């Protein structure tokens, strides 16, 4: 136990000295492993981890979903989604902000990245919210919070990583995200209602659309629906594995982008290189985290934690509540991906030993990551929105997003209280 804690402390020290996360984890893992076993074994271990992670077939799902998301962004399907939601809700108070949330949810059903979703709607939704005189805090808050739906509604890069780390069926984790995803959309819309009830000037109503316009707008969303049904339907129905679904999804998104004349050679190459870079960055952290985990598994920490959790057999929710609190606190300061890579290997055995479902815990992890993405001081989505809408101040975005953070915390509580929301749909899968 002491060694593992020393390892975590050393990692944090290196990370706060601004050594990149991947190297910080790798170094501590290497040194720790050398200390617990021996230097030769540690040297062989890091070479093997880097090699085998690079050549792991199941991991090819990561670049493919990233690529799919990037194609979808370039294909500009977001505009139709936003427009469709707008024709139904635009005339309500706060309707444009609700449209942003709903369209982000729809976009999340074909894009697995929260950053890409937030960045997309900063470009698509912000101009019209500004046009109708929305306050910047509400506009920025709804975009940053809506963006996090990208990882809760399948496909989701975070779910893929969770599935790989815990050897949980990625397809099942995806499907488990659907109902919580819908609940999240509703809760975020409720947050909008609350904000505009407190301050009607924050989100004045837009124009009412005629039924004909609504029908027309909904019809235009078909590519999104088609892609979602193809990929997630295919995975749910057991036609594809997650990897195959990702490949088909990337291929499908490529075809749509091509058909909509959104791709020139230059753009295509940009998209490919951008996806490759994101992949490399993720894998660097993944390799670092695996090296670190190899060390931690040689310490007594995983077993100690499991024993500790065993004392709470009668009140397992206490453990879950503690884990959620730890995550929400860690998530404010830590980069979310590193946070789950470091902690899930420790928490997962505890949680499953208490009889909880792996897919359910996956959803919990995703929701705490969402909360982390929009909570100060280092919420990634907030920086994304701030960077794309230059005149906003960070404090405006933080202020705007806080009611939505409350909504996501409520979502977390709901999923903890009613695990069926996550486990119901995957129950039908083989």
């Amino acid at each position, binding site marked *: 136990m002491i060694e593992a804690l020393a390892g975590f402390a050393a990692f944090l020290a290196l990370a706060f000295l601004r050594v*990149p996360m991947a190297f910080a984890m790798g170094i501590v893992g290497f040194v720790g492993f050398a200390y617990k076993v021996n230097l030769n074994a540690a040297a062989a271990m890091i070479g093997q981890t*880097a090699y085998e992670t690079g050549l*792991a077939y199941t991991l090819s799902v990561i670049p493919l979903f990233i690529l799919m998301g990037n194609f979808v962004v370039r294909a500009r399907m977001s505009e139709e989604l936003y427009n469709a939601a707008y024709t139904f809700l635009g005339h309500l108070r706060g309707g444009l902000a609700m449209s942003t949330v709903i369209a982000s949810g729809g976009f999340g059903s074909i894009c697995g990245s929260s950053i890409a979703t937030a960045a997309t709607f900063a470009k698509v939704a912000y101009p019209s919210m500004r046009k109708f005189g929305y306050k910047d805090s509400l506009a920025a808050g709804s975009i940053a919070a809506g963006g996090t739906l990208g990882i809760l509604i399948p496909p989701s890069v975070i779910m893929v990583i969770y599935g790989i780390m815990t050897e949980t069926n990625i397809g099942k984790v995806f499907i488990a995200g659907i109902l919580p995803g819908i609940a999240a959309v509703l809760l975020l819309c409720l947050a909008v209602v609350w904000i505009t009830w407190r301050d009607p000037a924050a989100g004045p109503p837009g124009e009412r659309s005629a039924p004909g316009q609504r029908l027309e707008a909904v019809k235009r969303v078909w590519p999104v629906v088609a892609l979602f049904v193809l990929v997630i339907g295919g995975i749910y129905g057991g*036609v594809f594995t997650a990897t195959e679904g990702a490949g*088909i999804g990337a291929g499908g998104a490529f075809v749509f982008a091509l058909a909509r004349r959104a791709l020139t050679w230059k753009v295509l190459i940009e998209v490919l290189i951008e996806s490759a870079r994101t992949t*490399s960055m993720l894998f660097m952290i993944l390799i670092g985290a695996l090296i670190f985990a190899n060390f931690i598994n040689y310490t007594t920490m995983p077993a100690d934690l499991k024993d500790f959790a065993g004392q709470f057999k009668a009140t397992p929710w206490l453990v879950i509540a503690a884990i959620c609190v730890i995550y929400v606190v860690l998530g404010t300061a830590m980069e979310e991906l590193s946070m789950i890579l470091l902690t899930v290997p420790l928490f997962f055995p505890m949680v499953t030993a208490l009889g909880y479902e792996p897919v359910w815990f996956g959803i919990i992890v995703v929701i705490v990551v969402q909360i982390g993405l929009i909570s100060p001081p280092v919420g990634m989505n907030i920086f994304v929105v701030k960077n794309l809408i230059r005149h906003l101040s960070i404090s405006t975005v933080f202020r705007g997003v806080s009611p939505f953070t409350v909504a996501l915390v409520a979502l977390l509580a709901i999923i903890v209280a009613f695990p069926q929301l996550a486990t119901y749909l995957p129950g039908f899968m083989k």
Partner: protein
Amino acid sequence: MNEPRQPLDWFDRMVVPTLGYVAAAVMFCLMALTCVDVIGRYFLNRPVWGGFELTEMMLAALIFAGLPLVTLRNDHVTVDLFDPVTPDWLFRIQHVVACTTGFVCTAYLSWRLWLRAEHMDRAGETTAQLKIKLAYLTYSMSLLMAFTAAALLVLAFRRAQRHFVDEADA
């Protein structure tokens, strides 16, 4: 884009376009291969011969070719919580320490991969279906890791960039 010239920018001009195109090509092939494989399997009952191992090799090529690119853009995930309040002199020290540490890690990993490649070369390890010599792939991984190490060394001589802060008044 009138950015001041960076020290050692010939390194970027040499590495970035080449590896960029390699990574782009591999990324595209990975997507195409998966699609063809799935369609072949379900509709024609004929998966791609060696598709599994090609996917694995392409994934490795993709990741390792992308690494020098990520590094040169200073895109590695870092804790930048204190960037806004770190004084300049400390920030420069942090930058040099981070780059040097990264250099040591990647250079060492590159060497370990090279040893692994030599071992595979001697053993004559090949893939199961296509009989491709795995040593070539591992040598390439080692070389690309060496490029990453070189990129980190190059970065150490450049001015550190703070995340998100200098963009505020752009």
